[in-house]
Structures are given as structure tokens and as C-alpha cells.
């Protein structure tokens, strides 16, 4: 379990333009699940996830993660160990590649954490295979490949560290539909087969609906709610009051309901909807 307790974060606390990005956040994130963090631009999502590997340290409150406790104002040792267990993939992570070759770039992380050169290369190969970059990419420059491939290489760099928790900030932004689907398929596989905890920040509620177990909604640095993803999108008033874009199938079900056609709550795919229609209408 990852637990935020009364955690606040203030940017530029001593300046006239200080901003409270997180405001007394209490939140549990369940291990082994896919959790989506959603909310408008500026709601505190990125600030929240940067606490997970101690890139940001709380201004007040506590974070418990992977057996470590990070408390505001207290110096925390073992941050490096924590960062090995929690891999953070930034937004537009493709801009962070820097080595001469892709294989070196991906091996950089494990090497940095004290893994032997040989082992780091092995891990890099395994990670590249997971993200779908075959051996013909090993010796290519990260600058020479397409944007989607760069992003996969950047994600491989995090996977090579073999973290328990993988945190992704807008991993599908700017990808085409196929690229986005493959990317999400990869995270679902890491979750289901390798039992990694996945925490994903996204604006794409279609992805949240189809892939996430849980949803946490942030607004103005506060946690509005944490719910099962499918239950969350059934809360019409909550969605409307927070101006949340509905997945299209949810919107379709709402419109049908307005016409007096009730669709059961457990129908979440078009195939199920069509089968229900055939049997009942």
C-alpha cells in the first residue's frame, strides 16, 4: 500500500507567488492494481506522482511507500533504494534520452544503481523486448528513431531498473491510436503478468475506463474521491460537477437511460452492449 497522510506541497513557499499544489492529501493506493490519477491541468496530478519516488518531498505530512516513510522536514536516507523500487516515467519522456546508443541508454539506469555492466545489458535487452524494440535497435542512436519508438526506449530505461511500482505521467499523449493502444497494452501486461503496481496520470478517460482498476480524482490539490473506475464513471452528478469528459460508451449509456432504456451497470464494452440489446430489446 502507498499511503499519503495529510500531505501538502507548496511551490515557492517563501515567495509572493507561492502555490499550494497539494492540500492535505489523504490517499491509499493499492498495490498490484492499475490506478489512474485524473483531474484538470493544474489540479496537482504531476506534483502528486513526483512524491512517489521522492523527487519532491512533502512540505507537510507523510508518505509511506514500499516500507519507507517520508516525513516533511525530516531527512530521509535510502532515497536511492526507494527510487530503485519506484520507476517514474515523465511526460514526453522521449526528450530525456541522451546516450549514444539505445542499448546504452536503457542500461544506464541499472548501472547507476550498482548493477554490473553485464547484468545491466541483459536487463536492457529484456526491457527493450518488453516494449517491442528488437535487437536491430540496440546500436542505433536514440535521436534517429521515431517519437513513438523514443518513448518506448525511455520506458524500457525505467523497466530495466526492475521497479515494483511504475508511475507514468501522460504516457500516451501525442501518440496515434495504435501507438496508444500498444502502450497501454504493455502496462496492462506488466500489471497482470508481472504483478507490477501501475500508477498512471492521464487525461484520456477512454483509457481509464478500459484499463484502470481504481480512479483518484484531484481538484485544486485536494483528493475529491477514490473509487473503482467503472463505479466512478457511473456517478453522473459527480462527473458533471467536475466537468469530467465521459468515455463514449458511458455517454451512450446515459443518453439511452434518458430515453428510458436501462442498460445494466455491469455492461462496459460495446460487444456486451450489443449482446444485451439482442437478448432484451
Amino acid at each position, binding site marked *: 500500500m502507498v499511503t499519503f497522510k495529510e500531505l501538502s506541497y507548496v511551490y515557492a513557499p517563501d515567495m509572493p507567488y507561492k502555490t499550494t499544489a497539494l492540500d492535505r492529501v489523504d490517499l491509499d493506493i493499492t498495490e498490484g492494481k492499475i490506478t489512474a490519477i485524473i483531474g484538470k*491541468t493544474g489540479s496537482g496530478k504531476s506534483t502528486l506522482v513526483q512524491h512517489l519516488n521522492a523527487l519532491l518531498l512533502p512540505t507537510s505530512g507523510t508518505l509511506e511507500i514500499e516500507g519507507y516513510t517520508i516525513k516533511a522536514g525530516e531527512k530521509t536516507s535510502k532515497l536511492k533504494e526507494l527510487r530503485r523500487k519506484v520507476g517514474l516515467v515523465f511526460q514526453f519522456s522521449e526528450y530525456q534520452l541522451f546516450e549514444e546508443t539505445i542499448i546504452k541508454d536503457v542500461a544506464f539506469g541499472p548501472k547507476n544503481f550498482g548493477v554490473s555492466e553485464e547484468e545491466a545489458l541483459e536487463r536492457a535487452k529484456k526491457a527493450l523486448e518488453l516494449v517491442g524494440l528488437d535487437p536491430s535497435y540496440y546500436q542505433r542512436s536514440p535521436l534517429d528513431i521515431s517519437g*513513438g519508438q523514443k518513448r518506448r526506449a525511455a520506458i524500457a530505461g525505467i523497466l530495466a531498473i526492475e521497479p515494483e511500482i511504475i508511475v507514468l505521467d501522460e504516457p500516451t499523449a501525442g*501518440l496515434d*491510436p495504435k501507438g496508444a493502444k500498444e502502450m497501454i497494452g504493455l502496462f496492462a501486461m506488466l500489471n497482470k503478468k508481472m504483478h507490477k503496481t501501475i500508477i498512471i496520470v492521464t487525461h484520456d478517460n477512454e483509457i481509464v475506463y478500459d484499463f484502470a482498476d481504481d480512479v483518484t480524482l484531484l481538484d485544486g490539490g485536494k483528493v475529491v474521491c477514490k473509487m473503482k473506475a467503472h463505479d466512478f464513471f457511473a456517478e453522473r452528478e459527480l462527473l458533471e460537477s467536475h466537468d469530467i469528459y465521459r468515455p463514449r460508451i458511458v455517454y451512450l449509456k446515459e443518453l439511452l437511460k434518458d430515453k428510458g*432504456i436501462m442498460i445494466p451497470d455491469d455492461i462496459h464494452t*460495446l460487444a456486451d452492449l450489443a449482446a444485451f440489446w439482442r437478448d432484451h430489446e
Partner: protein
Amino acid sequence: MKKIVEVKDVIFSYDNEHDALKGVSFDVEEGSYTVILGHNGSGKSTIAKLIAGLLAIKSGSIAVDGKLMSLENIAEIRKMMGIVFQNPDNQFIASTVREDIAFGLENYEVDPLKMDAIIEKYAGLVNMKEYLDKEPSNLSGGQKQRVAIAGILAMRPRLLIFDEATSMLDPTGKEEIKKIIYDLHTDDTLTILSITHDIEEALKADKIIVLNEGRVYKIGSPKEIFSDAKGLRDIGLDIPFTYKVKEAFADVGIRLQEHNKVEDLVEELWSLSKN
């Protein structure tokens, strides 16, 4: 209908080894809303940059408003077009919205006395009038894109190119920009050419040009393009939601019509349920 852009047999390579465009031909009709659809790496942004004169053509030809593009006339041709790029942060150059919209006008040596009225008119058109004296740091991505559009519209282009202008925005920002695109389309002196992989946006176009691996895969109306679900999926694209519903119902033996709007689809389902 008069053609404002004529692309003929265009081949282009960035590195002289791999061709990004392998012989592309299509036309864009004046006053139309035309979408170029394709996955990442299909060549759609390359063709946009060639039309805008940001890359030099190597083989084939591009004519804009009947004039063959060349290094000699590129500056003149460019005056009739405007481009909105992907990244809102790279396009905001001034310190306030007002100055940002004024930048292009100043370059075109518009009479300073007339400038304020022009700026207000176009800021109003993109619903940014109340933000005229705001700084870019106070604006969302969608608002910055709207300012970019206003700055371009103020120069009265006849061809407006959107190069993945919504892909970096959040859902609210995407909707804001798409609404402006649809509104602008009511002006039939303005041609809109939108490069995108947003299939829902493409539904509203007059014509869709689908690119794949540097070639034209298909040209047609939204209905013609989206009736080919398998072909589109094979090239890394997909079909819009309403078409997916039709497909899922067809799989269980229920035939539905094609619809562009979910609301119209619901009307059909409702009338089916009554019978």
C-alpha cells in the same frame, strides 16, 4: 470546385535514404474542410510542411492557388496561408495576448491605428477577448492555441493549416480548438486543412485523405473512409465511436445506419426499441 492546393507525385526524403513520401497526389478544394489522417510516421506532417513551404520539395510539384510553388514565389504564397502547430508553448512569442496577435500584423505593416480593432475582432472570434492583457503563463494550452489561431486569422489567410494542433492539449483544450475549426468552416472563403490522427475530428470533414507509409491509402468522404474498418486498423488507425457501435451491433445481427453523432445513433436505437 476550384482547387486551392494541388499536390502531384511528391517524393520527399529527410536523409536521402528512406523516402518519407513516396509519390503523393491529392487536391484540396477551396473553402473545404479537408483532413489528412495518418498514424505517426505516415508522412502527414511532412506533406503539411511541404505545402507550407517549410521544407523544399525534391520531386513532384505543389501548386497553391494555381501557382506552382518555387523558391522564388514561396514568400508570396506563404502570405495567403497560416499554420497552427502542435505545441502551444512554442508559438507564443510576445508577453501578452494582445502583443502576440499584433506580431503578425506588425510584420505585415498594418496601420497601427487600425490594429486594435483588428486584434479585438479576432480575439473575439476565438473567445479570448477578456484575456487580451494576460500573460501566457496565465493561459491553458487550449487558450494559447486559440491565441495562435487569432494571430493567424488576423492576417486573413485563405488557407489555414492545423498541424496536429490539438494533440498536446487536454480534453477541454481539444474540444475548444475543434469547435473553433468547425465554426471557421462556415466561412466558405477560408480553406481548412487539418493534419491529425483524431478520427472523431475527421468525421466532420468534407474530405479525408488517408496517408500510410508515405503513400495515399485512400481519399473520400468520412462515410467512404470509415466504412473500411479493417483497412484502417491494418494501417494503425481506427474508426469513430459511432461506427464501432454499428460494427458491434452488426456482429450480433442487428443492422444500424451510419451516424456521425452519438445523439442520432441513440434516436435510431430508441426507435428500434419501440418497434
